[in-house]
């Protein structure tokens, strides 16, 4: 398994929406390399005849009646918003260069 290069990390940080400084990128490249090295052993035993388990306790899908339950008031919802305008969340521009 290939290690994570600095270029890979730049790409991953973009995907994860985390801005990273050069110093952070340098430090984390080494750390991730060590972590991936320590966990890569899982592929040793994962042969094709073994089914995957996504969830520890098998449960079937849970449905409920389509009725209105307890909901939060607009005031409660907007209480923690970084910015809002009347009854809405206010966000910066979605697209660059208006």
């Amino acid at each position, binding site marked *: *398994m290939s290690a994570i290069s600095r270029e890979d990390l730049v790409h991953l940080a973009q995907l994860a929406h*985390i801005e990273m400084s050069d110093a*952070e990128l340098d430090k984390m490249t080494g750390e991730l390399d060590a972590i991936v090295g320590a966990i*890569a052993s899982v592929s040793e*035993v*994962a042969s094709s005849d073994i089914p995957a*388990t996504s969830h*520890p*306790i098998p449960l079937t899908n849970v449905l409920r009646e389509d009725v209105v339950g307890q909901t939060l008031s607009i005031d409660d919802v907007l209480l923690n918003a970084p910015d809002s305008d009347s009854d809405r969340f206010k966000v910066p*521009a979605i697209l660059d260069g208006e």
Partner: protein
Amino acid sequence: MNELIKLSAAELAAKLRAGETTSVEAVQAHLDRIAEVDGTLNAFLHVNAEEALAVAAEVDAIRAAGGAEAEALHPLAGVPIAIKDLIVTKGQPTTAASKMLEGWMSPYDATVIEKIRAAKLPMLGKTNLDEFAMGSSTEHSAYGVTRNPWDLGRIPGGSGGGSAAAVAAFEAPLALGTDTGGSIRQPGAVTGTVGVKPTYGAVSRYGAIAMASSLDQIGPVSRTVLDSALLQELIGGHDPKDSTSLPQDLEGLVAAAQTGAAGDLSGVRVGVIKELQGEGYQKGVQARFNESLELLKNAGAEIVEVSCPNFKYALGAYYLIMPSEVSSNLAKFDGVRFGQRVLPTEGPLTIERVMGATRAAGFGDEVKRRIILGTYALSAGYYDAYYGSAQKVRTLIQRDFDAAFEQADVLISPTAPTVAFELGANDNDPVAMYLNDVATIPANLAGVPGITVPGGLSEGLPVGIQFLAPAYEDARLYRAGAALETLLEKQWGHTLISQAPAIDTASIAQEA
């Protein structure tokens, strides 16, 4: 030290019922203790004095009035409790120990909090943790480390170091924790307290800020096995708001703890997991573990050795599955609807760049590491090799458990490979930090329940003994755990926690 704070939850509850003390006195005694020692320990991120005293006064008034309402009080009514700050509460801030949620006030209560309110347990406050529960030492909190009451230079374990330290330091008789890879049990082990990870789904996770949804579980933290059983019976049960909640209630937990406390394990088969001892486990830890086995044998238990050959892959599988789920669960912290919003210092002001700046400023290093690692494990070209393989290992670990539970009723191992290490010891070595959870992680991957009970001291620091049981069989943990607790205390002539040194509040500068 006020004698009220030394009581177990069950003892305090009995005194409250008998009218020998009041809930207001008990809550005040714990608040006084927090005021005395928490500037040094930093177990609490928020102290909820006013509301706790009001709830206590309400319970006292109901008891004083007598009648049907007093009769209907929950057995733990009036007994104070501390809440891990990963669990959302109305009226108190919830931060997950992250800058991202600084000042955030939940508009709703977690289901476990609703149950605690309904049973009228005064909530003392919110306890410290590793940011978003990611860590094994509580050093990754954005609000400062919590110190181990046994040795102020050492870690209290993690991620629930605050809850464990609060209970160990007599700041609270009960606390709530969450356990994704050992975050209740490992802090319990290194602070000489009891902690239980129930069967996955036995306690609702609605309102626990999600870290890794297929692994997370809320559970009790206490100083005695009986107290954990009492608390799990209170917080457990089906919850329609959590679609992974078990349909059935797990019953008989308190009764099992009471049975176990007689110290007789005749006919109980205890399986020693070959792979969770020896190399990597400190000598003192192994010695206390072996002594516990001897006691269990003398109490009638049949000791058998079981092999779980795939456990050696558990840590690898965990550090693929958990970060993958983390990268998804923490995507919601985007600076739009709640939490911090940080604007980029230069360039165009678009939502994408605001997200990048917000998450850069709001998350600490360990959280960033795990999000990036999860993003990597889930990315095209690596998914099968990493996430896919890890899910197969999960199947193998479940099979190991199935085979082991054919030979044994409960399994046993040391809870953690070492005693509490010194603050800062693993700062630059995330892999070494991850190894702390080697014995606790298999239970989360398989969904089975686990308990840690104090097993003695090594070089003056607590060692934890872990029992594991099949899914739904949490009662077996309480029976075995209470039996070992009784046997050890009989041998020592005292509880382990009574041996904890006085907290030297002068040695560490008050941080608050």
